[in-house]
């Protein structure tokens, strides 16, 4: 009896440990599955946006997902906002500030294809770390195509400035075409959206 009792006593904690381990593993997989669902949901949203925007890109409403990386004096680095082409200026409006580059002051406009990590920055790093069993690295595989718009311009004293914007895929080409149509100088003529710009 004593031995049996001893066995009973020693087995109970083992069961508890197994259950805890299973629960922990299950929780890990649940977090991983939830993250995957989030990824697919996030990647599906732009896809719907693209199908909805079957109208010509020049008539598409301004995209609020434009990132001003740097180069506008009144904007902090990596500010999100709306980029539009006005008859006399390129306008960027964020939640807190507004900046304009006069079309007459533009020296050159470039576009370039790029990609952006879906989980970047501090939040992305934390999300990757939270996924168990090193699964966070899988998240780094998810990225979406973007386009970079570089605008070189001069200020009132003739000083050189450069601004960099990151736009959703094919949007930079549209903005460049609009700027050139309004009289901005571009050393490389604008290509149709989606085509790679030919370097001189």
């Amino acid at each position: 009896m004593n031995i049996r009792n001893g066995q009973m006593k020693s087995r109970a904690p083992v069961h508890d440990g197994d259950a805890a381990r299973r629960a922990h593993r299950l929780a890990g997989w649940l977090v991983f599955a939830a993250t995957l669902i989030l990824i697919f949901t996030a990647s599906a949203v732009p896809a719907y946006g693209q199908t909805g925007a079957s109208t010509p890109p020049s008539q598409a409403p301004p995209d609020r997902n434009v990132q001003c990386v740097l180069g506008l004096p009144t904007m902090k680095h990596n500010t999100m906002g709306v980029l539009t082409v006005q008859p006399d200026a390129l306008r960027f409006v964020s939640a807190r500030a507004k900046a304009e580059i006069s079309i007459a002051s533009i020296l050159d406009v470039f576009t370039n294809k790029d990609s952006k990590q879906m989980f970047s920055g501090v939040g992305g790093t934390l999300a990757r770390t939270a996924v168990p069993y090193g699964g966070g690295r899988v998240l780094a595989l998810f990225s979406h195509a973007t386009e970079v718009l570089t605008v070189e311009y001069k200020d009132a004293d003739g000083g050189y400035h450069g601004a960099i914007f990151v736009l959703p895929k094919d949007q930079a080409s549209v903005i460049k075409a609009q700027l050139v149509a309004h009289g901005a100088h571009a050393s490389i003529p604008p290509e149709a959206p989606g085509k790679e710009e030919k370097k001189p």
Partner: protein
Amino acid sequence: MKHRNPAEFRVLFALVLAAAGLLIAGSLPARTGAPAQAAPAAAKLTTTSIQIDLMDPGDLPIPPEFRVAVYENLVAQVEKANKFQHVYRSGNRNASSSADLVILKTTAEAYKKGSEKEREVTTVAGATSIKIKAQFTDRNGKVLLEKELEGKVRFFGGNLDATNDFAKKLFTLIGDTF
């Protein structure tokens, strides 16, 4: 287990203390002697105004956004250094009125475009780097200081972060030079 008597402990303690004292005494001349042996610090340059020229990409296939990021980060760091009364951008008409103008010229020497995705997935691959020669010249083109600096992004962050890394190194160089 062998027990040591207090006398043995005292001897051991004295030996350890002596060894520690010798070690400290040995390291002291090295420390105090270091500044004396170092080359005398070069006289710092003085100027009230600086003009930052555009980076010369040479024959390297540096994307325009990279050139612009180098320039803008450079201007930001030079202004942040707070060593000059006027920081003129390339083409600024007011720069010509400055008598003691120093011009900062940058030339790209090497460029390797990495991949953010590779960096995130592998941690060891996909680094972006740019090596730039920075020259401080006077109005007549006489070179006052020349240094090669490298900007890198190794682990996390976008490719353009390499330009920020370079600009930060230049910030240190300006602090040491002016």
